[in-house]
């Protein structure tokens, strides 16, 4: 596997489609290409986060810890970016990411990621809209949960 193939893979990701290939090459060179077998963890909840991952191949599960054990909250496929929250706001990993199938990722270090975002405003904007989408979805879910909870409490009284 050479970084040329990585660059090809990155170019197929919509987020990077409009970026100069030379820049993508630098991104690929300064990142680690990592392979995970099913069940192996890319990162674990609660750990300090020092890198983000771009999934090049395979599918990963996002798990969060609950009193009843770990709960799958999402599945990520090819071209997904994961782990960027811990980098952007310096908090521990908010979830565990585990390989569901054999997964190949590009691991971008914190410095590399911040470099990327500061160099390419379009990536920052894309990232913002993705985060906003997630926030919106979370808010919707929260609303739903809150109303269900209210109903439950009313039923008890």
């Amino acid at each position, binding site marked *: *596997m*050479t*970084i*040329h193939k*990585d660059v090809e893979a990155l170019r197929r990701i919509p987020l990077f489609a409009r970026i100069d290939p*030379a820049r993508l*090459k*630098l991104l*690929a*060179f*300064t990142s*680690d*290409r*990592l*392979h*995970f*077998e099913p069940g*192996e*963890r*890319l990162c674990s909840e609660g750990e300090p986060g020092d890198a983000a991952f771009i999934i090049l191949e395979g599918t990963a599960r996002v798990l969060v810890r609950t009193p009843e054990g770990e709960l799958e909250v999402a599945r990520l496929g090819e071209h997904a970016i994961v782990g960027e929250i811990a980098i952007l706001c310096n908090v521990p990993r908010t979830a565990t990411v585990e390989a569901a199938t054999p997964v190949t990722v590009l691991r971008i270090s914190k*410095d590399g990621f911040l*470099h990327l975002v500061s160099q390419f405003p379009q990536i920052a904007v894309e990232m913002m809209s993705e985060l906003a989408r997630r926030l919106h979805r979370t808010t919707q879910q929260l609303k739903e949960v809150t109303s269900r909870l209210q109903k439950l409490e009313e039923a008890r009284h």
Partner: protein
Amino acid sequence: MEPTIFRFVWKYSWRQQLVILGLTVGTFPVLYATLELPKLIVNRALAGGVDVYELYGVALDQTGYLFVLCGAFLLLVSVAGALKYLLNVYAGIVAERMLRRLRYQLYSQILRFPLPYFRKLSQGELVQMINAEVEPLGGFVGEAFATPAFQGGTLLTILAFVFVQDWLLGLAAIALYPLQAYIIPKLQRQVNELGKQRVQQVRRNAEKIGETASGIVDVHANDTSLFERARFSDQLAAVFSIRFQIYKKKFLIKFINNFMAQLGPFFFFTIGGYFVIQGELTLGALVAVLNAHKDLSAPWKELLTWYQTMYDVKIKYEQVVAQFVPPGLKDLRLLDADPPEDAPEFSRELRAIQLVLEDEGTMLLDGVEFALDLPLRVAVLGGAGSGRHALGLVAAGLLPPTSGRLLMDGRNLHELPESVLGRRIGYVGNPSHIFRGTIEANLLYGLLHRPVRSRPPDPELERYLREARRSGNLPLDPAADWVDDAQAGIPDPQARFARVRRVLALVRLEEDVYGFGLRGRIAAQAEPQLARALLEARQSMLRRLARDPALARLVEPFDPARYNSNATVAENLLFGTPADGRIDLDRLAEHPYVREVLERTGLLKPLLDVGRRLAETMLELFSELPPDHEYFRQFSFIDPERLPEYRALLQRIDPAALPRLPRADQDRLLALALRLVAARHRLGLIDGPIQDDVVAARRWLREHLPADLQGAVTFFDPHAYNDALPLQENVLFGKVAWGQGQALERVTALVRELLEEMGLHDQVLRVGLGFECGVGGSRLALAQRQKLALAREVMKRPALLVLDNALAALDPADQEAIREALFAEFDGRSLLWILASPEWSPHFDRVIVMEHGRIAAIGRFDQLGPPGGAGAVVVHAD
């Protein structure tokens, strides 16, 4: 210490001085005879005119007589030379012994200094004094008495000769001596005064250098390197100006001496000439006197030189010694005495009576009184400046109080010898010193009081001890076994390890030491069993990898027949570890033999091409980044400031004619190529054919290794232990693969698991005990140093352990665990623990709260009132 150098030399070497004197005088007739014989040969043997020569009743002809005389001359010259040689060697040995004695005495004085004195005297000054300043003293010792006696005698003899010829001429010859004797000491005194200043200034330089070395981080952190240079230059300027004045005065003295010596003939010619003209003196007598005067100047000069040296040395000696006899020196008997029969048990009571400790006007302790029934766990609380630190030092017997007494089982603690205090009391300060040497040596340091088991006697050792005695050093053998196993409760030396291991576990250092062991190196020849076991571990590692594909992809083993894509090209080429400095992995391409290998195996051209393409890629990737970008340090093969150099190089070269490039350019390209790790950099430059070429070159390199490089590389051999590799690398024997999630953690865990399974834990731990701590423990982390210092005191099982905030650098979980373990370990013995914060006080039998050098409160924790009461308030006033 003797107050003057003469007293010192006479007291310790008067016999030797007499021998030197005797030898000196003994050479005199022989020398005289060697001067006399040539005269005899010329005047008698060569002049002829005699038919038969009689020598001690034997008749000889002229030739025979000549040969006998020449033979005698040869013999005398040999004897004179031999005597001179003997004298020089003997004087040299005496001088060296005296120097050794002096340095030993000075060093012993340091051990007697009262603790506060170390604040006034810097380390740099001490080193300067003991090493450099006493050095000229040694040279002087050999000639202290012999030179004045010998040269003075010569001088007197010649003078007597002159006086016999004519007393007036004699007077003329010495007419200027009184003047010289008056002026020169005056000038010399000025020179000496300057010499004193120079000595002090040089000491300050030494101190400054020491300060810079120890404060280097803060110098850089404050950007004061220019300022420091200016200050140092100022000090050098001071030395220079002193030296400059010394030179002026010194050469003035020389000038006067020479001038006076030249004045002699002036007087002889004027006065003697006048007498000759008047007919009162024969010309022959005048010539004889003139000759005698010429001989006079040599011993006179020697005497003056001796005088100058003597004065110089005298001052140096007095200046040095003055620094080594501060008031309050420890009593030598307390330092060296063996434990007395009636030493206290340290088991009944510790009582303080009106303890006062004053330090330059500050009352550190001001009337401290307490009585504690032992054994007891005591906590001492108090803010900075409360006297808690001083109390710890006094209680440990390290600092005697200014007044008042500390009674242990009714005996004054500070009148007990160190052989009792240093064994029955432990002290862990903050920070405690870690000595240069291994972890094990530091652990056993608290048990090294006297040699316990001496080495079997042998002539070498006898000689060694005899020589030590001759220089007034104690005849102790540092290579004997000094470890007092009995004190540590160890039945015999074989059982030491078990105890060491337990103590390491107690202070939670075992895991760290095990890690040192894994990263440590052993020599297979010295430890064949362990090496064999580790090779077995390597084999089972390989089997494990072969069985489990999930593991196999984490490691790429070193296989002589295959390219290792997780190692650099350089590592692949050398395929071994440099064993010494003869081959440098970072500068492999420049090595002439490696160069030869590349040329002979045809690897040079493809590798140059890899270097060229790599340089191109680097330029493409990094030339747009600002030069201070973090990526250069992390990822680039080329430093930012050298990018233009490579750009120019690439424009200049013809890719088809790389081997014709100048050597420097070739080396540049090769250096790049050799650093490539195929699996990590993923540039596709190291393809299959090149990999095969490298493997072939690797084989060639090893097979044709020239004689002068034998042993310079420890090659990777799957069936041999590699001394140059750390222990765990020997088991792993390969590279952790790039690009596999968490490979390093999992591989490390696997190696550990294997070693545990094979029961090698203790052996690895033993290797870890051999870890060198560095100067002042610099190779250990702060927490490790504190743990080791504590372990050292636990090892020696004191009856009372004083801990001065000793765990501050540890994380809270460790602190708690160690405290509990210590409490269990010291069950039935006493602890005096000085705490920086009060949280732990409930765990202690007694709490002492210090304030302004006095005890503000003392009692059980529950008696001291509620949190926020009197005691607590004092504590928080910190």
